[in-house]
């Protein structure tokens, strides 16, 4: 009787995706972001060009897709038990408290990343706005070095990199763009899965594809715009990225870079898929949905990212300026190199620039809404709160986190520390937890049987071996190499730099808060008689 009364007090999560396509587009939207258009081509050029695709597709088949299938399966399994957050689902799938508390990482990652991701998203909106108004002040007749200097100057001021306090430093416009961006995000998430997130991605994803096709067609039809430099052509631009350097295949760094690109691009181990999949119908196809979401991400990454940015930069800047463009990384290529490229496009440059930054904004917003939803679901589930009340607490968390990110803006040190430790390091940990829970704790055979409920095709039999042995080993090797390469320097820089210590303190504070909420939730779930330790199969 007590259990029945407690059950009545539990919030009944009735939310479900209205269509199969909705959840696929939502997960794809979460995965498709700035990295697809900017990071991927830079990585490919730096790691063997066309030869990079061999380790890249190996990583897709052995790392990205299997972990994705595991996460989709666990999410839907949790949803069948009425659970929607990473801690509760991993606790049920992983049969106990250890997996449940490790599942807190699945809330920490999207929440902490959202602190700075929305800020970067606001840059895209701001650049879009400036291109609508006529560009960012690059003189089309000036030498490339002067144009690049102007683009860097605009970027530095707009993003507050020069000194702390993006608001106090004269970049109040950036704050306004952030406020608009944040409000859109919260409004979409508050409206719920079907009316907010699903409706938006159903519109945003096709729009993004159309905009990418427009930019792609423009770039591929540029021909040889400068008659004085006939070698700066579309074909040579494509060759700059795709001509393979086969000797790169013997370099372990190439394989590591390819695995890293796949891993971060697909958003596996991020805590989003597990939450989104929990709103699927009990017989929805997780095998096809997981594969389709990965395929969509690859389409944007290779099909668009692999053809647009480097080609455009090469045509207008030439080989001599490409090294700087590639070494500038994701943000250098996107916010300082491409504006120079747009200035060379004549009258159409500002229009193409506006389309480009609006497309990046859509890519970013479909990712950022997926970062708020897991925390919202977690607060509702663990505290038994209404969506409105949980949204208010989420907003409080985000205001504190994002204001700190925006205030301590000098050099991007504060947010890049969160990106290193949460957006990179912890993703490895969560992915490892997920694949071990799926293949070893729950059992790979039971896990695959669960995945096959409602599936239109079965996961090939050899994936049993891959998911149990190859993927965890591959992940462990990549993670080991990653730590060996980065951890000593990261730890050293935290010890020396107060801004980095502040970012670590923020991460620690958020972690403690989430653990406390999990503890409260654990007590409530037990009192309500929920099977949070996964002792029985779902009763639907």
């Amino acid at each position, binding site marked *: 009787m007590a259990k029945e009364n407690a059950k009545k007090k539990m919030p009944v999560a009735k939310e479900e995706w209205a269509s199969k396509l909705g959840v*696929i587009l939502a997960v794809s939207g979460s995965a498709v972001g700035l990295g697809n258009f900017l990071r991927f081509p830079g990585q490919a050029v730096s790691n063997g*060009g066309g030869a990079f*695709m061999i380790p890249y597709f190996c990583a897709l088949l052995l790392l990205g897709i299997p972990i994705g299938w595991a996460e989709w399966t666990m999410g839907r399994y949790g949803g069948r038990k009425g659970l929607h957050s990473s801690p509760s689902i991993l606790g049920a799938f992983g049969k106990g408290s250890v997996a449940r508390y490790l599942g807190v990482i699945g809330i920490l990652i999207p929440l902490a990343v959202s602190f700075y991701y929305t800020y970067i998203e606001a840059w895209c909106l701001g650049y879009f706005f400036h291109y609508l108004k006529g560009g960012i002040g690059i003189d089309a007749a000036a030498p490339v070095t002067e144009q690049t200097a102007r683009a860097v100057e605009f970027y530095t001021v707009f993003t507050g990199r020069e000194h702390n306090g993006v608001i106090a430093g004269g970049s109040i416009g950036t704050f306004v763009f952030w406020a608009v961006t944040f409000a859109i995000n919260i409004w979409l998430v508050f409206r719920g899965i079907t009316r907010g997130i699903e409706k938006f991605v159903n519109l945003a994803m096709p729009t993004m594809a159309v905009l990418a096709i427009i930019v792609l067609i423009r770039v591929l039809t540029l021909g040889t715009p400068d008659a004085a430099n006939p070698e700066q052509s579309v074909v040579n631009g494509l060759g700059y990225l*795709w001509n*393979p350097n086969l000797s790169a295949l013997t370099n372990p760094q190439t394989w590591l870079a390819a695995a890293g690109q796949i891993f971060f691009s697909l958003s596996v181990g991020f805590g989003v898929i597990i939450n989104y999949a929990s709103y699927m119908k009990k017989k929805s*196809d997780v095998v096809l949905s997981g594969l*389709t979401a990965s395929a969509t991400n690859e389409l944007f990454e290779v099909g668009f990212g692999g053809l647009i940015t480097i080609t455009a930069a090469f045509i207008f800047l030439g080989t001599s300026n490409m090294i700087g463009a590639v070494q500038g990384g994701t943000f250098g290529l996107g916010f300082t190199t491409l504006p120079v490229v747009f200035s060379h496009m004549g009258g159409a440059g500002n229009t193409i620039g506006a389309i480009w930054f609006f497309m990046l904004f859509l890519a970013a917003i479909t990712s950022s809404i997926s970062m708020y939803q897991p925390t919202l679901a977690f607060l509702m589930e663990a505290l038994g709160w209404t969506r409105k009340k949980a949204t208010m607490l989420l907003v409080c968390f985000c205001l504190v986190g994002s204001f700190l990110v925006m205030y301590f803006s000098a050099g991007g040190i504060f947010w890049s520390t969160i990106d290193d430790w949460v957006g990179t390091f912890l993703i490895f940990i969560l992915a490892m937890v997920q694949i071990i829970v799926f293949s070893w704790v729950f059992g790979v055979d039971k896990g695959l049987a669960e995945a096959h409920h409602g599936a239109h095709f079965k996961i090939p039999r050899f994936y049993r071996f891959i998911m149990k042995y190859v993927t965890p080993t591959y992940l462990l090797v990549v993670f080991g190499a990653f730590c060996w390469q980065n951890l000593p320097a990261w730890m050293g820089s935290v010890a020396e730099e107060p801004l980095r210590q502040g970012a670590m303190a923020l991460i620690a504070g958020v972690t403690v808060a989430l653990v406390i909420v999990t503890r409260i939730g654990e007590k409530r779930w037990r009192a309500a008689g929920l099977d949070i330790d996964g002792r029985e199969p779902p009763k639907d």
Partner: protein
Amino acid sequence: MTTLGWSAMIGSLVFVWGLAGWCYYKILTVDHHKHD
């Protein structure tokens, strides 16, 4: 662009477009009522 460059690019594009095309074809043509 070398022959190997063309091969790498076209092979990669065929793979990603083919995979996405096949997935969406399956999504749009399967019997939804049978499974949902």
